[in-house]
Every structure is written in C-alpha cells, then in structure tokens.
C-alpha cells in the first residue's frame, strides 16, 4: 500500500517534470501580452479607480491643520492651535496656488467653502494673531461655525468616501452620518438606472433583429453568407462619429425619413426622430448589432440541421422543434452576444451625446463631464467604480443563469 503511494508520488513528480517545459513555454508565449496588459491596462485602471477614494492631496496642501485637527473632539469649535495652524497653512497654500483646489474639494461637501477660502486666502495678511481664533471669526463668522470644521476634519483625511457616496446619491449629514441626498439633488441613481435600462433595451433590440439574420446567414449557401457578412461588417468600415452623424441626417426634421413620410402624406408635420430616446435606440442598435450577430452566427453554424430534422421526424411541429431543440442550443451564442452588446452599451458616450436629448445621457457622459469641465477626477472615477461594480454583479448574476464557460465569443 505505502509502496504504491510512494510510486504515485514519484509518478506525479515525473509528470510535473515532463510537463514543466510545456508550462514554461506557455508562460513565455503569454507573458508579452500579460506585461502589456498589466502596464497599460490593469495598472492605469486600478490607479483611476483608486482616485475615487484618494484624498492625499488635501492633507498635503494643509499639513499642519491635517495633523492637529485629528485631536478635535468634533464638539464645539477647535482650539486656538488649530486656528493658528490653518492660518499658517493657508498662507503657504495661497503662495503655492493650492488653495483653489482645496476650496473646490471642500465646496463639494459644503457649498460656500470655496468662496470662504479664496476670500480668506486673498486677505491672509490682514489676519493678525495670536489669538488667531478671534481674528478669523471676526474676519468671517463662518469660521465660527462647527459645520465648516466638521467638513474640514473630514476633508483632510487621507482617503474619502465622499465622492463614491455622491455617485450613489448619498452624503454625510451634520452628525457625520451617511444619509440620502434630498430628492431634488439626487441625479446619479436615475442616470445609472437609465444607463442600465437603455443598455438592456438595446440588447433586446439587437437580439430580436440579430437572431433572424444570424439564422438566415447560418443556413444559406456560402455566396449569400459572404455577402451578408460583408453588409453586416460594413458598419465597421466608417468611423463611429460619421455613422452617428449620418443618423442625424436621416432622422432629423427635414431628413430622409421625415421627408418621405410627409411627401407620401402619412404625416403632416415632421416626427421627432432624433435628439431623443428613439434616436439613441436606432443609432446604438445599428452600431452594436454585429456584436450580437457574430457569436450567434458562429454557434448556429455549428448546429447540424439533423437536430431539427430529428425533432420533426419524432413528431414535433416546426415551432416546437425550434423552441425545444434549436433555441436551447443557441443559448451560448445568445449569452455571449447579449453580454458583449450589453457591456459595450453601458459604456457608450459619443452616440447618446450626439443623437440623444438631455434626458438620454448615460453615465459615461457624466464621467467625461466631470473630467473635462469640472476637473473633478474623484467624481469621474467614482461613477466609474459604481458602473464597474454594477456590470460585475450583473455579469455574475447572468453567469449563474447561463453557464459562462459555455459561451462562445465569436
């Protein structure tokens, strides 16, 4: 018995030894791609996501205050030392032109902070102390308001959840508790759910339109099949921007569709076909359709006609044969196609921005908005984090329903 066991162990070792070369070769083959992905993809993404909670530039800008405010109990106003520290810090920060950044970030938590800091910073030489406490409160009574100090204390920590909370329509209240923002301020939840809703709708539209095309392609002779494939891939031959803009030409008030409908007397005044949700659906479905058709087509190609024939010969009507025999075998293709379309749709930016109205913008639009216009990277990456978590959890939920390992991507 033990001899056999020993034999087994040595066999295992021999096998490992024999397989080692192969393993090293395999690693060698994937390592360039792995390295490129790591350096140019995973690390930047991780850094970007980290920005959503990173707050280290704040304690760096006001180092003494950040240090001393930790001792503040949160009740009443801080002591003289803290006031002295903030005046010192502001003097330096003002010279280093960092006060604007600090003001902007604190203003995000409490409106009014930006103007308070810039005003104080401009006239910092007029504030003479000690005691700095009284001097500051005399200068602007906001310095005597505990709310401002609570925000300051929160805002000078190394990390902050402020932006992530904001991306989910949450905030801190005066007692440092996490609460929902009032309804009139809440926008992100509705933007995110709109994004998901549009993406699901596009996925369903692509499936409805793509399934028959894929079926026809898979069951037609090679010539027809190639022609259809070229027509389908034609979408990729022009830039996304041109394709989207051409939809505006087609769908606008005096565009091709409206002109035709008016000319043929079906309608009297142009229909609103673009710069609304309808335009977004049309343009996005058009662009994303190939991603549904290709995996479906490749799965359908691999299903022999004999299965449906067998079902028919066994007594099933063609519709029964389709539903019970053909459709279940296309599920891996449907899964792969739906996933590709859905995930791409979630991140769409340029198409809704061009052909959608203000109420059709998706999360990516706001990411771009915060980066380009507000220079608020924390907020942009927080929206990214929320989107990523959402996509990930949908993927996992979906993966439990349809075995992901079974899916065929192209």
């Amino acid at each position, binding site marked *: 018995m033990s001899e056999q066991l020993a034999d087994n162990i040595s066999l295992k070792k021999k096998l490992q030894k024999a397989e080692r070369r192969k393993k090293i070769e395999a690693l060698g083959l994937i390592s360039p791609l792995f390295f490129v992905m790591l350096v140019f993809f995973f690390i930047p993404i991780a850094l970007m996501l980290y920005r959503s909670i990173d707050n280290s530039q704040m304690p760096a800008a006001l180092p003494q205050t950040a240090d001393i405010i930790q001792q503040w109990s949160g009740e009443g106003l801080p002591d003289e030392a803290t006031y002295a520290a903030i005046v010192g810090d502001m003097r330096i920060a003002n010279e280093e032109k960092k006060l604007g950044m600090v003001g902007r970030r604190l203003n995000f938590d409490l409106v009014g902070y930006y103007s308070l800091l810039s005003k104080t910073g401009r006239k910092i030489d007029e504030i003479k102390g000690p005691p700095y406490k009284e001097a500051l409160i005399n200068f602007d009574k906001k310095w005597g308001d505990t709310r401002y100090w609570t925000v300051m204390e929160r805002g000078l920590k190394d990390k902050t959840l402020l932006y992530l909370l904001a991306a989910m329509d949450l905030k801190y209240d005066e007692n440092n508790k996490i609460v929902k923002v009032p309804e009139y301020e809440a926008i992100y939840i509705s933007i995110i759910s709109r994004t998901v809703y549009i993406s699901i709708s596009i996925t369903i539209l692509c499936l409805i339109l793509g399934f028959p095309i894929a079926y026809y392609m898979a069951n037609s002779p090679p010539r027809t099949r190639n022609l259809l494939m070229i027509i389908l891939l034609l979408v990729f031959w022009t830039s996304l921007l041109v394709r989207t803009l051409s939809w505006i030409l087609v769908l606008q008030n005096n565009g091709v569709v409206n002109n035709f409908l008016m000319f043929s007397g079906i309608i009297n005044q142009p229909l609103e076909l673009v710069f609304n949700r309808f335009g977004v659906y049309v343009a996005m479905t058009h662009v994303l359709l190939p991603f549904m058709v290709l995996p479906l087509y490749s799965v359908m190609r691999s299903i022999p006609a*004999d299965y449906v*024939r*067998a079902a028919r*010969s*066994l*007594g*099933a009507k063609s519709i029964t*044969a389709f539903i019970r025999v053909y459709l279940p075998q296309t599920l891996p293709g449907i899964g792969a196609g739906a996933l590709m379309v859905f995930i791409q749709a979630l991140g769409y930016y340029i198409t809704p921005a061009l052909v959608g109205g203000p109420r059709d913008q998706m999360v990516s639009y706001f990411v771009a908005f915060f980066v380009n216009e507000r220079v608020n990277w924390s907020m942009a990456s927080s929206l990214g984090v929320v989107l990523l978590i959402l996509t990930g959890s949908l993927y996992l939920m979906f993966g439990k329903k349809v075995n992901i390992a079974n899916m065929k991507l192209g």
Partner: protein
Amino acid sequence: MSNQEFHVSFKNVQKSYDGKILVVKDLNLDIEKGKFVTMLGPSGSGKTTCLMMLAGFESATSGEILFNGKPINKIPPHKRGIGMVFQNYALFPHMSVGENLAFPLQVRKIAKPEVEVMVKNALDMVQMVDFIDRYPGQLSGGQKQRIALARALVFNPELVLMDEPLGALDKQLREQMQYEIKHIHERLGVSVVYVTHDQAEALTMSDQIAVFNDGIIQQLASPEDLYERPENSFIAQFIGENNQLRGVIEKIDKNIALVALEGGKKVSALMVDVKDIGENTILSIRPERVIIKPRASNSTDIDGKVLELIYLGDHIRCRMMVAGNDEFIVKMPNSSNHAQLKVGEEIGISWEKEDCRALKP
C-alpha cells in the same frame, strides 16, 4: 398485388435540386410491410435523397410517394409518424437520455406515467436502462447509436428509416450492432428502410436490397439473388468481388451463349441481359466459383498463369493472368486437399456455365 398491400410505394419519383440535373430519375420501389429494405449504392447515387423524401425533408420534384396506400407528398414530416435514425445520431445534447426518449411522446401529449413506462421499455430493448440520466456527451458512439435507435422506436412507428446509422462505428461494434438492429426488427415487426454504402452490411441485414446508381435502382432483390444473379455489370461489380472477361457472342443455344474471349478462347456463359450474336459482352465470374484443374481438359476450360499468391488463413487468394486480364482472382478454400500452386505456374481453370454470366458491358 394492388397498391394497398404495399407499405411504401415510390411511383415515378424524380428529384432535382437545381432544375438541371436529376438526382433521382424515375424511381419505382414498393416496400412490403414488415420488411427490412436496404438502399445500397455509392455516394451520390440518390439513396439518401430518397430517404429524405420519404421522411418529408425533401419534396419530390415529380411523381408520388404512397405510405399505407395514401400519397404523402403534402404531409409535413411531423405528421408522417415515421421514425428516423440519423447518421450522426442527432441526439439532443441539452437533454438527458430519458428526456431524449420522452420527447416524441411529450409532443404527442401522452400522459406522464405512460411516458415513463414507454421510455423504460424502449431503453430495455437496447439494454441501456442504466443510462437514463446520462447526457449524450457522456456516451460512447455505440451507446449513442442504441439510444438513437430506441428514440426512433419509442413512439411505436410502423416505419423506421435509418441513414447510414453505423457509419461512425468501428468494425467490430458495427457488426454487433447489425445483428442487434436485425433482431429488434424481427421482434417488433416494423418496416425498416435502411441506407448504406456498405454492401456487407446490406447483405447481412436486409430482406431486400435496392441497389442505386446514377439516380435509378439497378436491381431490387434479396441478398442471395443479388449476389448470385446480378442483372447487369454494375451490380456484378458493385456487389462482392467479381472477375470480368471481355468477349463477343458467337453462338446462342437457348439461354447459353458461346463467347469468344480476347485471345480466341471460347467459353459458355449464361445470358442475362445480352440478346444477339455478335454483341460485345462482359463475362462475370465470382472468384470462389472458379475451379482449379491441373491442365485444360475440355473446350470450356481455359489456361491461366499464377501471378501472385496471398495467404489469408481461411482461404488463399490467387491472382492470375486469364485471357488478357491480369487481375483475375481465384479464391481457394484452405482445405486439407487444396491445390498446391506456385507463382509462374500455368494451370487450367473452369467453372459451371451457370456461374459465368454474360452481361452487357
């Protein structure tokens, strides 16, 4: 016999896929109830097309197919009630063995308890009851074959079609399955239409064999008749091994012709589809029907030169040069007193004149 007594009849059936070439030309075939009929032929001979027309997956371009005396050209496949076994089994991969077998019963709206009994019985028939919960992907080729067979039979069809069902199996398993299918057929009494290109399989299993070539049935006969009495040179060549000698008919005496072979030697042969003196003919002789003699002794005997000897255990294959044909094969049974031949030896051979069939070239 009137039409009513045939289970299946093809009447002047033609089939063309492209409107130019006829894949099936004027097919007439009657199948009796309970018979095992094989459509045998090389690939592209139209046999599978015939089967597909019978199953309803292809429509006849012209002509009529009768099933139980009624034309079925316009009946969709699912209403024909014909079981079918496909070449690659076509077991539904997403259903277990039990679900596969229950499928034809469920679509017929048979009650659940009854379905269970019928599925069990069908699996019992092919000795696969233990595999009811397995999926097709977990079965070997032979096991899949049995399940496919059980599925085609589970709803008690009167007619079962089989399209090269054993093509993907290895030789040993194939032979075993041949007997099994044969026995199941005998036990159930269903009519079977079987398509194959393997003539040994056709001979083993069938009551009747329809040999297809070039879109028409060359001969419809029992295995024995087909082998012993081929009606034309295609059948003679296609079924079993055959020696062919070319010659011209010199004299006719009732149904026996005297044929002058290349090189001038004259032999007697049974006339099959040749008619006139002076006609060119091909003589066909089975290798095992050739008799070896020490030396040519009478006029119908001819000489041959031994070119090659191959020892095959139960028999010895001898390749000879006979009347200008150097591929003339003689099979000698390996009995205790068989002739001892040497390569290069000149010997006399002969045959019964009924074994030598004069056919149109």
